[in-house]
């Protein structure tokens, strides 16, 4: 018999519906997989009892014929989503012991759809990073290794616990968040699927804020069909998030079969960056051929401000982070460092010095600088104007195409230390960050292996609220690529 942990969401849902196994049996197998995945350090908190308790409730609902679209599906939750009475850390020392008294809207939606929780997944501290090496709870290890080489590789970031757990089958799927590429880049580095929906599609309420004008939650799954199912469960209007957009959530899965015949695929020439490995260039070309063969029309487009996206991001994101992270002051929750005779300012400064990691401190300080008197216009305002330019580029491209095809990342998974200075690390997001600045939906789909046997992804970027086209194009790519490879380390 196939292992239950080997099933996709769609397959597990079918098995549960046909009473081939129960939600409790499924959760039990996954609890064992979570334990077996410990060498990856993908989890910060495991919640096996909660998983079983939720699975029992799922079995009751299935018996009563009240199953939701994710009924009984065991998930890992990135530890940036507040979960009621379950430790929520953002992978930072400063949130020591924090047990939210409320549940994020996205996880509430998932539980309403019947999903169950296996635990809270590791990430880069406050979602700042591209390799999951800035967590207070230690590095996450990618289940993939180069052929004939035992060196540990990074799982991407910031949603690195999510990507590693999904790739190793420790969870059926996971939530992620994406501010500059934090869903799509780790998905690409682990051979999994990750979609960042349109800004406003998923509520940000109850998600630890990093850069509020860029942050979006999305699913990380084994295939495109699962991403469609899970996005539908996560998305929806929420009056508690002022930037949540009140538009209907379509049945994404239903759109997958529509194919790409006649669809216009834009190829942005500016994404051919210097020093990009030939293998990635070749895979991109292969993706073009696949979509052409499926009946799509290929159109060359230009996004002239692409090279300014990362510099704009590294003003806007730290500026918003410095403002958002001002709430961590040692007063109401988490860590407090205060010695006898200390003033209130001493307490703030000592708490934040001890509680934040180095990368978080760097970004908070850059943010404080670019927002400070005399520099606001030169940096922050300028970056927001450049952002308008980047959005205009996309609007012009949509006149001649329906969706864009690009590589997801400029390289496959790397080892810690191979990209060690902050700036080289930032370049990981060169292809993904534009979609955040313009608020557009983007997906990474595994499309092939490099010469070391490591997965590479292709990215599709679509028009606002047109996740359906993004997903059905991704589905066509997935079918053409036939990506079946599995990592060396499997937990389930």
């Amino acid at each position, binding site marked *: 018999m196939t292992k239950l942990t080997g099933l996709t969401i769609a397959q597990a849902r079918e098995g549960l519906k046909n009473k081939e196994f129960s939600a409790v049996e499924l959760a039990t197998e996954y609890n064992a997989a979570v334990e077996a995945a410990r060498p990856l350090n993908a989890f910060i908190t495991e919640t096996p009892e909660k998983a079983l308790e939720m699975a029992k409730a799922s079995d009751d609902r299935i018996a009563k014929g009240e199953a939701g679209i994710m009924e009984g599906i065991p998930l890992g939750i990135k530890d940036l989503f507040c979960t009621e009475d379950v430790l929520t850390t953002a992978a930072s020392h400063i949130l020591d012991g924090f047990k939210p008294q409320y549940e994020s809207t996205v996880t509430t939606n998932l539980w309403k759809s019947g999903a169950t929780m296996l635990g809270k997944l590791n990430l880069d501290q406050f979602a700042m990073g591209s390799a999951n090496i800035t967590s207070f709870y230690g590095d996450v290890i990618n289940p993939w290794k180069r052929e004939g080489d035992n060196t540990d590789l990074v799982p991407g970031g910031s949603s690195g616990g999510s990507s590693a757990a999904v790739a190793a089958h420790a969870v059926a799927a996971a939530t992620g968040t994406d501010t500059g590429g934090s869903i799509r880049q780790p998905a690409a580095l682990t051979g999994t699927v990750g979609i960042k929906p349109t800004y406003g599609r998923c509520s940000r309420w109850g998600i630890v804020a990093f850069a509020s004008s860029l942050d979006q939650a999305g699913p990380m799954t084994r295939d495109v069909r699962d991403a469609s199912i899970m996005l539908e469960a996560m998305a929806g209007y929420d009056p508690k998030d002022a930037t949540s957009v009140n538009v209907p959530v379509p049945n994404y899965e239903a759109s997958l079969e529509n194919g790409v015949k006649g669809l216009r695929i834009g190829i942005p020439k500016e994404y051919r960056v210097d020093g990009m490995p030939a293998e990635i260039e070749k895979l991109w070309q292969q993706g073009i051929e696949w979509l052409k063969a499926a009946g799509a029309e290929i159109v060359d487009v230009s996004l002239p401000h692409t090279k300014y996206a990362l510099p704009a991001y590294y003003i806007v994101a730290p500026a918003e982070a410095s403002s958002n992270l001002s709430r961590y002051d040692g007063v109401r929750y988490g860590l407090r460092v205060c010695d006898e005779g200390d003033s209130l300012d*001493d307490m703030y400064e000592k708490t934040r010095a001890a509680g934040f990691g180095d990368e978080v401190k760097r970004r908070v300080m*850059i943010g404080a600088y670019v927002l400070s008197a005399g520099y606001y216009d030169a940096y922050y305002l300028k970056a927001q104007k450049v952002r308008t330019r980047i959005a205009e580029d996309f609007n012009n491209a949509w006149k001649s195409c329906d969706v864009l095809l690009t590589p997801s990342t400029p390289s496959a998974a790397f080892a810690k230390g191979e990209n060690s200075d902050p700036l080289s690390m930032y370049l990981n997001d060169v292809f993904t960050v534009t979609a955040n600045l313009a608020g557009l939906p983007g997906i990474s789909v595994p499309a092939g292996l490099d010469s070391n046997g490591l997965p590479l992804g292709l990215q599709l970027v679509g028009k606002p609220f047109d996740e359906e086209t993004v997903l059905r194009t991704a589905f066509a790519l997935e079918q053409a690529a036939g990506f079946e490879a599995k990592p060396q380390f499997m937990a389930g």
Partner: protein
Amino acid sequence: MSLDKNTVAKIAKLARIRVPEEELEPLAGELNTIIGFVEQLGEVDTDGVEPMTSAIEHEMFQRDDVVSDGGYPDRVLANSEHANMGFFTVPKVVE
């Protein structure tokens, strides 16, 4: 524009992060690398361009001006180890 040690000390103060004297210089180097990187934005012509204020155009809605949540001070204080008599407490501010 290049950040010196004194500017870094000032930013650290603004950000309420204590940075030991000996770390100011190396931190200035790290921050300058990032500032140097973002300064290429100066090449972009943004004359007459409006700054982006929202990634996706949509109407801000107005909610009714009513209390819709609250009334549970114990839950609000649940994560503070220093709550006392229904309040958060901090070091003495006024002598």
